[in-house]
């Protein structure tokens, strides 16, 4: 048989709205998600992969709008010479019959909906063993059947499943967990997995590509898909990660201390290539201790740089301000202003007070410092 090349992707979550961002960003992220199918098609054509395997969660919900469904089908239908093999995931499970009925009603011929766990010949000499999620929670390992699925000798066996292999960090119990040696026990040449939004390699034959367009800071970077090539049954697969995502998600830790140059440290942590900032979403988690003036500098710097990014969010919940005598001197060396600053400093450090109270006192002191500084300049 000839070699088989296909793209493996999952978790497109079409229709996701991203309510935590501003309207422009929301619209941009939605458009990018919707456009990821077209990019996958383009990559498939470019890479001469005749098939795209979507390992579940094509849609974000069980009831996406018709617009989302129809545009997805249109994008897939537009890819000449590419066959799309799709199983429902836990987000768009087979229980969502109207969704899959609409898909079936409007799908172009090159789109294959795999709604039952039975072998399908995806290409001559290559059999696909799908494990569709017919319910949100199956309560069992849906890939068990693959172990006993009979295929003719000399055929490639490719598993397609959606679910956790490890428990990852999901809330549900491990009943749905796919056993980690399924590829071996079912004699699979490749097990195309979905569910984990980041790239994850369980073993050479069992891989998660992550979502082609990232959707959270937890899985940083740009989304990707996997180009898989199987030469013959039993041979190890050749897997290549191909970037797909338009937006780069970065979760950056900014460790600060009073002796640091805030500006320099910030610029060290932020992506160096400024040309990419417009397509980068950053969560900047400032931690440690800074002086009052450093805090103001940090705020100003972040405020200054934020418009250059698609999104820049500064989380200061882990950052404490250390007020020193000279900081207070900058507020006032004498008089009532000095007295007020000292009271606030004392309250912000008074462990007998609640954390909320201390936080408010510290913030009030920061505020006083900022006022005075602004006044002086």
């Amino acid at each position, binding site marked *: 048989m000839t070699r088989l090349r296909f793209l493996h992707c999952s978790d497109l979550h079409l229709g996701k709205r991203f309510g935590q961002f501003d309207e422009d960003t929301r619209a941009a992220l939605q458009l990018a998600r919707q456009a990821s199918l077209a990019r996958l098609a383009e990559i498939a054509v470019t890479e001469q992969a005749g098939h795209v395997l979507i390992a579940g969660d094509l849609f974000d919900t069980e009831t996406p709008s018709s617009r989302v469904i129809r545009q997805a089908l249109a994008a897939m239908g537009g890819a000449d010479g590419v066959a799309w093999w799709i199983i429902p995931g836990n987000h768009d499970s087979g229980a969502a019959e*109207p969704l899959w009925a609409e898909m079936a009603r409007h799908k172009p011929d090159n789109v294959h909906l795999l709604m039952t766990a039975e072998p399908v010949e995806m290409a001559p000499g290559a059999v696909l063993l799908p494990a569709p999620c017919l319910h949100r929670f199956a309560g069992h390992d849906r890939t068990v059947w693959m172990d006993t699925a009979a295929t003719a000798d000399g055929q490639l066996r490719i598993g397609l499943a959606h679910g956790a292999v490890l428990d990852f960090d999901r809330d549900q119990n491990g009943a749905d967990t796919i056993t980690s040696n399924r590829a071996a026990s079912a004699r699979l040449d490749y097990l195309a997995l979905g569910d984990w939004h980041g790239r994850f390699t369980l073993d050479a034959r069992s891989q998660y590509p992550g979502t082609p367009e990232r959707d959270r800071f937890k899985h940083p970077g740009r989304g990707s898909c996997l180009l898989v090539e199987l030469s013959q049954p039993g041979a190890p697969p050749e897997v290549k990660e191909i970037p797909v995502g338009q937006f780069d998600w970065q979760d950056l830790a900014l460790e600060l201390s009073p002796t640091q140059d805030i500006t320099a440290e910030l610029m060290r942590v932020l992506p160096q290539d400024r040309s990419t900032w417009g397509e980068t979403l950053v969560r900047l988690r400032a931690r440690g201790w800074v002086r009052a003036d450093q805090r103001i500098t940090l705020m100003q710097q972040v405020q200054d740089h934020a418009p250059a990014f698609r999104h820049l969010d500064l989380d200061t919940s882990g950052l404490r301000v250390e007020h020193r005598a000279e900081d207070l001197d900058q507020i006032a060396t*004498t008089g009532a202003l000095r*007295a007020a600053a000292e009271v606030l400093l004392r309250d912000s450090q008074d462990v007998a007070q609640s954390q909320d109270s201390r936080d408010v006192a510290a913030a009030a002191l920061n505020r006083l410092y900022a*006022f005075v500084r602004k006044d002086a300049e």
Partner: protein
Amino acid sequence: MRLTSIRLQNVRRFTDPVEINGIAPGLNLLSAPNEQGKSTIFDALHALFFKDAKSWDKDVRALAPHAGGDPEIEVTLSHRDVDYRVAKQFTKSAGKGSVRVWQGGTLLHQADAAEAWLRDLITSPKDDGPAAMLWVRQGLTDFSDAKETLGARRDLMSSLSGEIGAVTGGQQMESLRREIRAELDRLVTKQGRARANGPLAEAETRLAELTERRDTLAAQVRELRDQLDQRQALRREEAELQDPDEQRARQQRLDEAEAALTTAERHREKCEQAIRGLDLARVRLDQAIGRIETLTARLTDHARAKDAVQTTSTAQERAATTAQTATQELQLAEDAARAAQDRVTAAGKAVADALQAENARLSAGRRRELTAQLAEYDKLQAAMAADRRLAAQGPDAQCLTRLEQQAQAVALARHARAASAATLSVRYYAGADPVLTLDGTVLSDGAEVALTDTATLDVPGLAALTVQPARTGDSDALPQAESALAEALHAAGFDTLDAARAAHLTRSEAASRLKEAEATLRALAPDGREALVAKLDALPAAPADAEGTEADRSGLEAEQAEAQQALTQAQATVTKARHTQASAQEAAQLARARAEAALTELERTAQVLGDNATARATLAELEADRPKLTEDVHSAQAELEGLLASAPDLDQARAAAQRARSVQATAQARLQVIARDLAVLDSRIETHASHAVEEELAEVQDLLAVQEKAHAAVTFEVATLQRLDQALEAAQDGAQAQYLGPLMGELAPLLRRLWPEAELQVDADSVLPSQLARGATEESLTQLSGGTQEQLALLVRLAFARLLAQSGQGIPVILDDALVYTDDARIEALFDALTLQASDLQILVFSCRQKSFRNLGGTALAIRPVDGG
């Protein structure tokens, strides 16, 4: 602390070094025209003491010369009798400025330590001692802030509050608090509620809207998921119902049930037939037995009727005889009763006659009695008429009492006369005869006579003695009494009292008798004489023989009672006989009726029976057929039991068939319902899906999380601003309370130096000077003239300086053109005040009014280039 020299380089116009030497402990004057650098020196000193060397803020930047260069300021000073040199250099490069402190030739401090040393120098050991306020800039003589020249602080009140403000935070504090309040005001109302249309209100509104939207969407999603679940369940059920194997199984179950029902129903028909055969055999047997019993009964009835006719006939005859005897006895009894009745009638008549005679006698007696009463009545009436006349005559009791009283008066008069009269006693000699007479009355032996009137004692034989009693005072009383008595008697118609008494007695007796007679009359005729006459007239006339003989009435009555008793007995006998006769008659009639009934019954039984022989023959035939009929019943029963034992359960077969049909029908109906429900659900799901509620929910949840953070941030901002405002207010209040009182104490004598009895008044709310009272005049500080304002401001500063000096932390007072508007007359008083204060304070006065300040006195200072600089 006091300054001894100042040196500047690269400070504004002084690019080359200049110095002021010889600054004395007390009052110093630097008098020079404008533009000579006085204010530069002032600002340089200010920067040295109050600006961090690393600072390059606008105040510091303002010190740099146009040509560039780093400002250098150096002073020598004496503090607690030790000399120090302090040099500070500001530089444009951030954080590169330097500060050093030397003691003698030794570097004592530098950098932060030197700044701290400087701070300690100008900070009150108490806590937040002010210093900057003691230094008055040029152009700020009215104490307004240059930045706010157009603002409210142009006036003296603001200037003074600025004085105090230096401890309470000054203009910076005020501007800060204004800014904080403005920000707070944008967020919340004074009551702490979110301000309408403000950021907090908007955050709250948005949060509420999103929460509501989230809840609505969550409900819709729940509904949608329910619908999806329902749809799936329906689809599963539909598939099961439409499964061909299931459908075949259902049909087979129905066919089998129907066949079993047919079999059971046929068997049931056989059973019913057998039941009917058994019923027929039983009827036949029962009929034969019935006929046997009927015939036997009829024969028995006929024989019994015959016996009854014989018995009743004999009884009838016996009853007739008894009735006849009873009738005869009744007649005898009725005869005896009639005789007894006649005897009673006769006895009654005799008793009535006797009673009539007795009544006539009683009536005559009564008449006599009434007649006698009438006669007595009339007699009494006559006597009473006489007595009434007597009772009307003679003196009544009253008249007699009067007479008796007058007689008593006569007696009393008389007695009185006798008591006072001479007394004549006679004692005869033994043997002599009583011969003496007095007024003709013989006086007996031992006689004793009172001589009340003229009397004549005759001694027979001897002489006639006339005795004349002596006259007393009331000798007329007796004759008057007697005369009155006589008149009364005469008036009453009597001659003597006794006659009057007798007449009164007659009258009383007559009255007494009248009463008695009236009582008797009432007893005789209580209702009057007419009533008596009427009673008499009412009596029956006396019969002619009313006085006839008296019959033996009791004997007659005994006879009558005896006859009555006999009659009663006879009547009882008749009653008893009548009863006996009636009973006998009734018994006879009953016996007759029974006999007639027995005959009728005999006729009836004969008729029912018909021919007796035939009946007996029929009975014999029926008895012969009876065993066969009994056998027929037994065989039919055995057949039925056999059938019943082998019968299938028809009810069960019916139930099974019904259930199988129902299952089939229900499946069909259910399929229709499912089809309809699925259509409805699909429509609903499509509606929800077309609105993409799940996607929107996820979006709204994200939005809500963001909004919650935003809301928390605004809330935190409010708390922060409130906390800051509260801290500033508390610090401000504390500082005001700490400084204001002592300040006023220091200020009072200085004020009076310019204006006797002047007093600065403080507003209770703002704790700031508000009015200047001079004698009876009270003026708002804003109304004061420019000169008065600056004088007042200067005095306040001097008071502050004194306050500071007393705390052991005196610093120089520097006045840069502080007196501009003050006229020459008033300025003298101020110079005195300055000189007085300078006794324990270092005061540096910079002035361009060279002429006016010539009289200030003190040490004259000059700005000189540094030799070799």
